[in-house]
């Protein structure tokens, strides 16, 4: 159609998008190529504290099953622990999607290893060091995996192993570890009972220390859930228990008066 002068509408595709592109209303938003590049700047669905304790002949790590969406308790029954193999388990706090990403990679690595059929099995140190490199490399690209990860394991030769790594690549080993809110509330409790026990726990003592801390966290951490999973790694292998509810006592509540 010929141009009809100033009184007729502009040709249909004037100022329109190139074929295959979306229409860009002038002044409302900029083409994505002109915007700053965006990466993960904050976690979205998050898990709170993970606890880890070593004992004679093994390690136990624990995490509740809540996935929070800000202050909303969005997913109430998701697992934040991963059994890697019979020697290693990991637990993650922070962004749940990033944990799933890491979980998928580890599962694939373990599967690839199984295909070799050489009975090789990643040791706790190997998994911990590997995670350290993955998380450090991502922070160096300013595109972090937003997690605090606890690696627990038992190796016949190396004994109990408990390691930590965060989104920046800070990593260390310690006899008791807690991430997130738990590093303020549970870690002092764990250290106190561990040290007053001559730096030596039995499996039962480790589990009861964990249970106590999970209960304190349920009372005090607003992002915690009321059931938790435990991974126990000993010479007999690694098992992740089904979620266990935390018993609470609110008798005192009716006596609390807010003036």
């Amino acid at each position, binding site marked *: 159609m010929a141009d009809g002068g100033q009184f007729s509408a502009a040709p249909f595709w004037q100022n329109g998008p190139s074929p295959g592109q979306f229409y860009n209303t002038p002044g409302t938003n*900029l083409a994505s190529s002109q915007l*700053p590049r965006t990466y993960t700047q904050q976690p979205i669905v998050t898990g709170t504290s993970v606890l880890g304790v070593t004992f004679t002949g093994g390690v136990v790590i624990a995490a509740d099953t809540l996935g929070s969406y800000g202050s909303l308790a969005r997913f109430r029954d998701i697992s934040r622990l991963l059994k890697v193999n019979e020697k290693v388990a990991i637990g993650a706090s922070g962004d749940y999607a990033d944990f799933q990403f890491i979980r998928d990679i580890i599962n694939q690595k373990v599967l690839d290893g199984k295909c070799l059929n050489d009975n090789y099995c990643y040791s706790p140190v190997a998994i911990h060091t590997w995670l350290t490199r993955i998380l450090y490399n991502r*922070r160096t690209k300013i595109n972090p995996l937003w997690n605090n990860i606890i690696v627990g394991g038992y190796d016949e030769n190396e004994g109990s192993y408990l390691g930590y790594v965060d989104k920046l*690549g800070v*990593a*260390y*080993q*310690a006899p008791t570890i807690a991430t997130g809110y738990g590093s*303020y509330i549970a*870690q002092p409790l764990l250290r106190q009972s561990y040290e007053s026990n001559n730096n030596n726990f039995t499996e039962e003592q480790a589990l009861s220390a964990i249970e106590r801390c999970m209960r304190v966290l349920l009372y005090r951490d607003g992002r915690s859930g009321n059931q938790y999973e435990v991974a126990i790694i000993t010479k007999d292998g690694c098992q992740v228990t089904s979620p266990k509810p935390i018993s609470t006592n609110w008798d005192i509540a009716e006596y609390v008066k807010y003036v």
Partner: protein
Amino acid sequence: MAAELKKAIYPENATIGLPTQHRFDPYTLNGGTIVGVAGDNFAILAGDTRLSEGFMIHSRDTSKIYKLTEKTFLGTCGFQGDVLTLTRLLNARLTMYEFEHRKKMSSTAISQMLSTVLYYRRFFPYYTFNILAGIDTDGKGCIYSYDAVGNYEKHTYHASGTASSMLQPLLDNQVGYLNQEGVRRVPLTIDKARTLIKDVFISATERDMYTGDSLHIVTITSDGVTEDHFPLRRD
């Protein structure tokens, strides 16, 4: 370019349509202090074993002293993530050197390599503060200190890390005999140096929140290396 476009479209500093920009901080400070002292026939490198972040103590027994060769040790503090990466990179470079030259790298060669490795990351630095201690080719003790981007200098004594500003003047006075008149400059012995380092760390622990738990002391002589642990305040 996005900023110019934004200004053209929204003259009144409007923020509609653009993502708010707040950057992820790729660094953290994990604290800790290291001290190196070199004598005529020895070098001592000491560091506390606390690993902290803000008000949290992550670990009470993570050493800051890393063995590079039989007679060269590296003390390093600052950002633990970079410390782990840097020490791994150095170990890889040292292994490659050994395979290529069929000998261990000398302390002086390592000192130059460390500077190069640090400067390579001039515009995204390894946030680490290093002291290298070793025995040079003449059998004398040597200490090199570095800033985060590879500026380095040979010293007879040096302190780095969170309590360095407290320790360095004390070492200047007691080891360097600086700011004193008519002082008799007695050559430093291993025992005196070790006692001084312990005292200096005990004092630093009293004043610096990020220093404490225990002291790892490595003494390097041409005859060999001894390592000691000395308890410090844990609060």
